[in-house]
């Protein structure tokens, strides 16, 4: 293998684009200004392909593949937007809205919720599946942050940032299926966690109003994720 990166050419939405070997379809699309909706993906964290919003069609491949983990290949013909994909994305969003309770006082006023933005971008007008209305609590035991499990979409960004960047692995997911929930340590109140360093990274990568800062007006609750690329680069350097 030579050291020079291998350049590939492919088509995304009928647009000729080039990619460095190893790049994901999502990375190539974004470089070329092609919008692909994502929710669990966050640059700087390991991709998990869980939310299924970034599914794309690839000519000759019968299954839809997640753009966030699928690598670009020579001659690939990718479609990121079609009536079918739009319909699937809408349904997935509806499933998320119905899964828990997204009657949220924070996002409605500050418009910083990624779930809300996606719903708008995908033209959601209403949710066709019945709302489940589970009874989930709010954990406000931490001195600086609070966790409202009703808003959680289980994207596991908090779990990943805490493990991969902060190195504390305070967060993880317990249970299975529809009963999954993010937990701190042994499913104990966040404020009593033995391992939380109160760094707040989880709060800033949370795409919804699940993890928020206390004592900040809703309108000021902006998520700041600019630290991620720096820290990721430094972690990689160390390895």
């Amino acid at each position, binding site marked *: 293998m030579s050291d020079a990166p291998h350049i590939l050419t492919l088509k995304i939405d009928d647009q000729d684009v080039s990619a460095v070997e190893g790049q994901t379809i999502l990375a190539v699309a974004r470089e070329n200004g092609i919008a692909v909706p994502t929710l669990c993906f966050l640059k700087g964290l390991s991709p*998990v*392909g*869980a*939310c*299924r919003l970034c*599914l794309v069609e690839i000519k000759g491949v019968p*299954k*839809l*593949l*997640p753009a966030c*983990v*699928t690598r670009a290949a020579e001659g690939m013909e990718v479609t990121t937007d079609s009536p079918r994909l739009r*319909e*699937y994305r809408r*349904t*997935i969003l509806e*499933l*998320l809205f*119905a*899964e828990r309770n997204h009657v949220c006082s924070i996002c409605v006023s500050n418009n910083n919720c990624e779930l809300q933005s996606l719903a708008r971008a995908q033209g959601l007008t209403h949710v*066709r*599946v*019945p709302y*489940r209305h589970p009874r989930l609590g709010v954990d406000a035991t931490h001195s600086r942050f609070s966790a409202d499990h009703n808003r959680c*979409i*289980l994207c596991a960004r908090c779990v990943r940032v805490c493990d991969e960047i902060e190195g504390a692995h305070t967060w993880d*997911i317990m*249970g*299975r*299926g*529809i*009963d*999954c929930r993010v937990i701190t340590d042994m499913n104990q109140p966040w404020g009593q966690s033995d391992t939380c360093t109160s760094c707040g990274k989880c709060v800033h990568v949370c795409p919804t109003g699940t993890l928020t800062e206390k004592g900040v007006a809703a309108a000021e609750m902006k998520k700041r994720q600019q630290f991620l690329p720096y820290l990721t680069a430094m972690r990689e350097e160390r390895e």
Partner: protein
Amino acid sequence: MTPEELRELAARRREELQEFKYRLNVCLAAGCQSCHGDSVYKALKAEVESRKLEGVQVRGVGCLSLCAEGPLVQVEPDNLLYQRVRAEDAPELIESMYGKPLKRLACPTDAPFFAAQKQIVLENSGRIDPESLEDYLAADGYEGLMRALTEMTPAEVIAEMTTSGLRGRGGGGFPTGLKWSTVAKSKGAKKFVICNGDEGDPGAFMDRSVLESDPHRVIEGMIIAGYAVGASHGYAYIRAEYPLAVKRIQNAIKQATKVGLLGEGICGTGFGFTIEVRLGAGAFVCGEETALIASIEGKRGQPRPRPPFPAESGLWGYPTLINNVETFANVPPILRNGGAWFAGMGTEKSKGTKVFALAGRVKNTGLIEVPMGITLRKIIFDIGGGIPDGKKFKAVQTGGPSGGCIPEEHLDMPVDYDSLAKVGSIMGSGGMIVMDETSCMVDVAKYFMEFCKSESCGKCVPCRAGTDQMHGLLSKICAGEATMDDLALLEHLCEVVKNTSLCGLGQTAPNPVLSTLRYFRHEYLAHIQEKRCPAGVCKIKAAAEVHA
């Protein structure tokens, strides 16, 4: 031990076995044990001892196939089979060996249940003591391995597998030879072989039976695979719910290690291989390759997107071969008799035989092995003896929660991977549940959806939330509270979940709904429009108050 020494061991055991003129094989597999097969075994042993009989051996063996009629005892040399034997029948059974066949308990072995079967995987099942290495050796055990190690290169072994046309018996039907050659070609400092014994289909017990009745066969298959792909370590991942299977495979590993069939320098060659048992802990999703790997690594059994496939990057990132129990069990006879021999059985695209766990509303429930290409009708009505209690056949379910329900009109179709897929079901791992008119197909669909919902790992949205919503809609239909809009929504969710889920569990979860909608839509409509359950299973409230 060298091959010569092992063969000597086998010859000695054959001689020993011949010393006994009579042999009583008592089934001690889980099925017969649960109806007190062990007390029959003890009673027969005591009877032989108290009468001081010479040349009579009482032996505990693996599954004798007809679970419905257990406990089963087989008497050699006449090969008579006795059913529903109780401990107090022991004296009569002993006397039966001396010219007085016991008609009262006789089970006709020329009946189609036995005659129509073709046993390869189960060839030793019920014929050897599963806890005896020598018994396995005496039945040509490890001959396939010895042939592979001493006469063939790894590439030749893979070529033999490719010739055989064997396809994965776990459900997917991926060509085994191709899988092996992919792993063999993958580069890695280490490679692993995993045996998937996390039998997940809730209505199937093939793998359990093979592990309980003939554990060495699976080990032999794994070692051959290790040699072929260049792996030196294997994991046997077995459900913790199968304690007997776990015990027997552990015992077999110990025995094989003792005689040098596992460890360094197997059979005096330079090849080394070890096997470790790992217990599953009750997660259907771990039947999925990447979830299974996560579980062996000690993590939550959540799948990850493929590619990369485990063949390239699997356990701890190393190339990994994963096959299921039955697939490995097919390997020794293929190596012993040649791939061409195996390819001579079955249909054009589905070779060999398939083991099915025949259960449900059918007379002869049990474990059967049939050649590929046999018709469903033959399995259900000849081998299975038809539907009991004068009831009418309605459907047969194959493939468990990932499969579908096949109606009467398709019963004459050959059983192979492609035909089953064509009618909306799958081969699956081998569960075959027969249903009669007393089963409601909407209720069956709801049952499977409840299963998928509780087995969904929760990682991807469509499977986690979609199965829950589909289950809710099916419950609504069963309760007679649904509208035609609900049915349309259910069908829409089926499509989305099928096409967008991350792994096989979610992608196939809608199958039981889709197949029942395809063949039994009228039953759905009866629940929705007429507010009645044709089979009388669902409890529908009279004049249920339905809005909209």
